[in-house]
């Protein structure tokens, strides 16, 4: 399924080659608590991206010398599966993956009350099963949900979304092809909606100061949308459980009447 690059990514009407409007996100599907071995877990599908996140901890830290005397160490591993891209990706962590692990940790750490659990480790694993651009953003979004699912106290959920420039149009949530187009710009943003705080801001490409402002506002709007979906996904896990029980309860009552 080799992707053929279309001649024009955005047509005259401002519709992108995959049918989206300029400020439209890819469809997002999120599930929380899908791994039983992990303390917390989540899964996201954002367009063609498929990403799993698992959290363990807070737990004892090994090796011991990594322990921090005043807070928990948040250890993050971002990894792409060898089959996640067209050309086989070597499973060994690449320079790019190490960097993304680091920026992810730094994007999530402000949201976690690490100071509550000194000398422990919170281990976070983000596994990209299928990549189609914007995986660090989708990765931060799921990782934050996995942390919440593990019952780790947090200031806020962290939602992330990219915005940028493609063929002189400012667009939201770039996919792989758009990201790789020449003379564009890509700006991943991570954001805590309730606190109105940006925790990650990167950019490559060129933007004028005015465009930068616009892209930032657009990206933050995207993050707010993602944040809403995160909350729904988190609540969905427990409402399903609750409804199941309500039925059980009713059955029990009915049986009791009989």
């Amino acid at each position: 399924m080799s992707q053929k690059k279309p001649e024009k990514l955005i047509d005259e009407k401002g519709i992108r080659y995959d049918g989206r409007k300029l400020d439209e996100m890819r469809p997002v599907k999120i599930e929380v608590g899908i791994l039983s071995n992990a303390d917390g877990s989540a899964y996201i599908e954002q367009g063609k991206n498929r990403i799993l996140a698992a959290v363990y901890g807070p737990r004892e830290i090994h090796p011991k010398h990594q322990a921090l005397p005043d807070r928990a160490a948040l250890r993050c591993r971002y990894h792409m599966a060898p089959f996640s891209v067209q050309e086989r990706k070597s499973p060994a962590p690449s320079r790019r993956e190490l960097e993304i692990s680091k920026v992810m940790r730094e994007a999530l750490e402000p949201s976690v009350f690490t100071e509550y659990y000194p000398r422990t480790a919170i281990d976070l694993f983000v596994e990209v099963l299928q990549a189609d651009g914007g995986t660090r953003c989708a990765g931060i979004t799921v990782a934050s949900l996995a942390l919440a699912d593990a019952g780790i106290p947090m200031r806020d959920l962290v939602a992330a979304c990219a915005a940028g420039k493609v063929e002189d149009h400012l667009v939201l949530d770039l996919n792989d092809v758009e990201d790789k187009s020449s003379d564009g710009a890509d700006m991943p943003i991570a954001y805590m909606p309730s606190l109105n705080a940006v925790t990650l801001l990167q950019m490559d490409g060129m933007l004028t100061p005015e465009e930068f402002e616009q892209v930032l506002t657009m990206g933050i709007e995207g993050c707010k949308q993602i944040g809403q979906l995160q909350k729904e996904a988190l609540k969905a896990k427990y409402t399903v459980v609750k409804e199941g029980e309500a039925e059980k309860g009713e059955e029990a009552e009915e049986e009791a009447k009989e």
Partner: protein
Amino acid sequence: MPVFYENRQLVTPGDLLAENDYINGENTYREDGKIYATRVGLFNHEDKRVYVVALKSFYIPMVGDTIIGRVLEVTLGGWIVNIRAPYVAMLRASDALERPVRPQKDDLPSLFDVGDMMIAKIVAYDRTRDPLLTVLERGLGKVTRGQILEITPTKIPRVIGKKGSMITMIKNETGCQIMIGQNGRIVIIGKTPEDEHSAIMAIRMIEQEAHTTGLTDRVTEMLRKMKGEKTTKEVVENVPKET
């Protein structure tokens, strides 16, 4: 001034719960006079106190808690014990022997070996030190028989019930001896495996339906029903033998 949620409503981390005049209780934090949730849980407010009952959490040691631990390692001066917390606990030999320890003569593995379960109390713990245990009080010591059950620590208060109503009821209905550790481990010792099984079923039911009301009555009902089924089954089984 306002509170933004109703009692028992589901909230997620970062949800704004209340403003200004309220006091932030458990699983919440305060910033610029605003109170936010820190965990997924059920919102509650009593008078001026706002808190969240977490649906999932882990055990954090507290001095004075009775916990159920598993021995991980026997060292020269004591034991290293898993207490289902982010920290491993230490039980020193002097806190298990009630007399000075003679390293050459005392055989520590004979008291507690790797894998043994114990009921212990936390005597010391703070941010800088791992928890320290003792087994020298009444009701503490090695668990020699029975079954161990693990549940989320936040649901322990529900298993105990108001003034112990729930747990007393389960004990009376099943005839089991039940010891609850604050860390979410429960020891059940019954006269027969069936008794233990029904006690486990009851606790599992409480864990599942912790947030519903009228639970004690429903659990009682379930236990009585299980007992009823058992007796009728016995009757059915006995009939062919007699004929």
